[in-house]
């Protein structure tokens, strides 16, 4: 069985661009949630978000590119460039053996939102005026354009696709990429996810179902997973892209390895498009299957990177799923949600969480759950409140849950370089 390792990482996240800034923010327990500045959010119920400070020009996009590429595409390209440079893989790439699996929950929704206002005369005309549309509207319409941009940047000629499974898109895209390497369809995959959903339509639709936090008077502490006072998630944005490589290939070229992708599984709850059953059984089953694939006992898990969105429904569902799958070990293992600091960037967040999980292994540190001061009595695990914890961690479990009923689990392990495959 081929093994798959992470040999490169690039990040665009709220609080800073680059993997280094990302990890500094997380381990400091700082939050990047604030009042929305990307558009005038005054009429909205939730007027807060975790925004990335991102200047296209600073990242080499000329004005035409900055105009053509949706913000989600720009994030992914910047993250992909950093990941490629970080991995040092570029000079050894065989294009036909290189692929891209990029996740995104809402694709180019920001571009679509903005363009709709233009072609519909600010919503006055149902028969929109196509002559007023930007020439690249089709790229916004079908978001596989996001994966295509990354593939062109990397020169990938192997399998390329966009995985769009709502809020598990990031985890699922990475799991899919690992599978392509294992089955022999590619040797190197650029994988991760991107989303830039802080736009009027997305904020409005989460307003409509009251899923996002209305804590507009205190944006910095608004994302409060597992805390009794939580009142919804805080929207985020960003992208993480990883270079996944077949283990022997990485070893031959002496590549630095962050972690191994040891197991992945997903299940569906077939219950409700947005609702979760309280018992967490499908997520528990995904966790069990991912650990089985990794050939690890549940007691091996040294850190759980939680979905931890900060909705009451999620936090209880997830806590139940962890108890159900990890048994009494659930009480012994540190759990944390980085959404407390960088918000919930929908499909992208899974990729950022896998990046954080890999860094937790590399740096012997568990990032905290910020803003956790009054634990919900129904959430009784060790959620690593407020302060990062130094701790050697060899195995990380990262989980995700999404609209459509998707439940995913991925297992990362410290690379065992001496061991044969």
């Amino acid at each position, binding site marked *: 069985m081929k093994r798959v390792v992470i040999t490169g990482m690039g990040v665009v996240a709220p609080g800073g661009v680059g993997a280094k800034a990302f990890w500094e923010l997380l381990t400091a327990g700082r939050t990047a949630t604030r009042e929305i500045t990307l558009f005038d959010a005054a009429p909205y119920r939730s007027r807060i978000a975790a925004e990335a400070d991102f200047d296209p020009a600073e990242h080499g996009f000329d004005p035409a590119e900055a105009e053509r590429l949706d913000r989600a595409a720009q994030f992914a390209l910047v993250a992909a460039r950093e990941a490629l440079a970080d991995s040092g893989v570029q000079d050894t790439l065989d294009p036909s053996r290189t692929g891209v699996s990029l996740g995104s929950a809402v694709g180019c929704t920001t571009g679509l939102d903005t363009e709709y206002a233009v072609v519909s005369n600010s*919503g006055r005309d149902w028969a*929109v005026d196509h002559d007023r549309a930007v*020439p690249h509207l089709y790229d916004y319409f*079908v978001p596989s354009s996001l*994966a295509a941009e990354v593939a062109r940047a990397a020169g990938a*000629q192997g399998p390329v696709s966009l995985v769009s499974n709502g809020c598990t898109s990031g985890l699922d895209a990475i799991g899919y990429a690992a599978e392509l390497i294992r089955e*022999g369809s590619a040797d190197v995959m650029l994988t991760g996810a991107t989303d830039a959903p802080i736009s009027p*339509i997305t904020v409005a639709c989460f307003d409509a179902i009251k899923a996002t936090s209305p804590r507009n008077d205190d944006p910095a502490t608004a994302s409060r997973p597992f805390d009794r006072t939580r009142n919804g998630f805080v929207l985020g944005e960003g992208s993480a892209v990883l270079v996944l490589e077949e283990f022997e290939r990485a070893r031959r070229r002496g590549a630095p390895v962050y972690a191994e992708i040891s197991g992945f599984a997903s299940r569906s709850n077939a219950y409700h498009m947005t609702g979760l059953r309280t018992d967490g059984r499908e997520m528990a*089953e995904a966790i069990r299957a991912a650990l089985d694939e990794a050939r690890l006992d549940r007691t091996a898990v040294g850190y759980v990177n939680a979905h931890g969105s900060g909705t009451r429904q999620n936090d209880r569902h997830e806590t139940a799923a962890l108890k159900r799958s990890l048994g009494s070990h659930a009480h012994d293992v540190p759990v944390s949600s980085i959404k407390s600091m960088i918000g919930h960037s929908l499909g992208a967040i899974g990729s950022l969480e896998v990046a954080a999980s890999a860094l937790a292994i590399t740096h012997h540190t568990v990032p905290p759950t910020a803003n956790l001061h009054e634990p919900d009595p129904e959430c009784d695990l060790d959620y690593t409140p407020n302060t990062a914890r130094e701790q050697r961690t060899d195995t990380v479990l990262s989980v995700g849950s999404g609209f459509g009923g*998707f439940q995913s689990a991925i297992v990362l392990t410290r690379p065992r370089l001496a061991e044969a495959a």
Partner: protein
Amino acid sequence: MTTTSPVCAPSPSPATRPGTAVVTGIGVAAPNGFGTAAWWAAVLRGESGIGPITRFDASGYPVRLAGEVPGFVAADHVSSRLLPQTDRVTRLSLAVAREALDDAGVDPAGLPDYGAGVVTASSAGGFEFGQRELQALWSRGSRYVSAYQSFAWFYAVNTGQISIRHGLRGPSGAVVSEQAGGLDAVAQARRQIRRGTPLMITGGVDSALCPWGWAAHLADGRLSTADDPAVAFLPFDAGARGHVVGEGGALFVLEEAEAARERGAAVYGSIAGCAATFDADGSAHLADAARLALADAGVTRHDIDVVFADAAGDRAADRAEAAAIAGLFGRFGVPVTAPKSMAGRLLAGGASLDLAAALLALRDQVIPPTTGTRRPADDCPIDLVTGAPRRGVRLRTALVLARGQGGFNAAAVVSRAD
């Protein structure tokens, strides 16, 4: 290409290898027929479903033809509770998924826990639903956006709703690679079968026939502006002038071969090989995808009895595809067809519909025709089946090709049951 996928090593009887994925159910919604039987009969009659757009007033646009699914009454297929929560694309998907399950004669409730999943291809989600909500947002304000927008529009909506209706709790998801998605989704579902999930629903059904979707298509600039349905979409013809957009697609019940045999299921054929490539450098790697799919299936080019072409209906793209096919099989070396000439290009649904056509061609030993096109252009040296179905052929293995805008290529090899 220097390497091939080692997962499915060549074997004399691919359909009996453990982990082999066979198709036991087909559901179809197409512009020239709603339901598999109605559509296939229309295809063999050479009946086109392309006509003037009726779903919205297209008189002000430079393109006024499309392929619309006829006779679909949503309320017959979707509960009144679900109607306000769903776009047309989801309603069509639910109807087509049910047909596929009924055709397979399988009750998912009887499967082991987590024993069935769903992977669909999507391209634009519930786009018409999305337009209504964008219209509400921009004309009336954020408070008028529907509570259903958060899940009625996004790309995984069809997968989620099919999973919920039929209680399918196995690994599931959605794949987006424009027109290549209809094969990529099936490849991903086949992977899940290999990993141990006994049954998957997969394929693609698509629809974005609203002014907003139309604006996106028009911006793309690949559409035929003809007003005569008979000559609007002429793949491989010297007079090709773009394509016509349609809605619909196909969904399949895919089962692990052994499990299907145990329950005595009727089998259309196996998904013997799949592959995908990308044109990162501007050159066309469609032929590479085909070669990889053949290798994955453990067959050679001599085993392929018919090719279902991507058939862009654009001169340059048609030439490139004809060159890829001729390069692989020789000039005029294999029968080629494009029944999508009768349906238009269906976004994520198109390649799935071609896969359905390939499976039924193998079953009935007949190659459906490419209509409209009388003969391929001189620079397209392929044996295109035109005019009438070609019978009296021995069909055991078919190759289906698909290309997605932006550089996506996909190929699938389908082998006859038995």
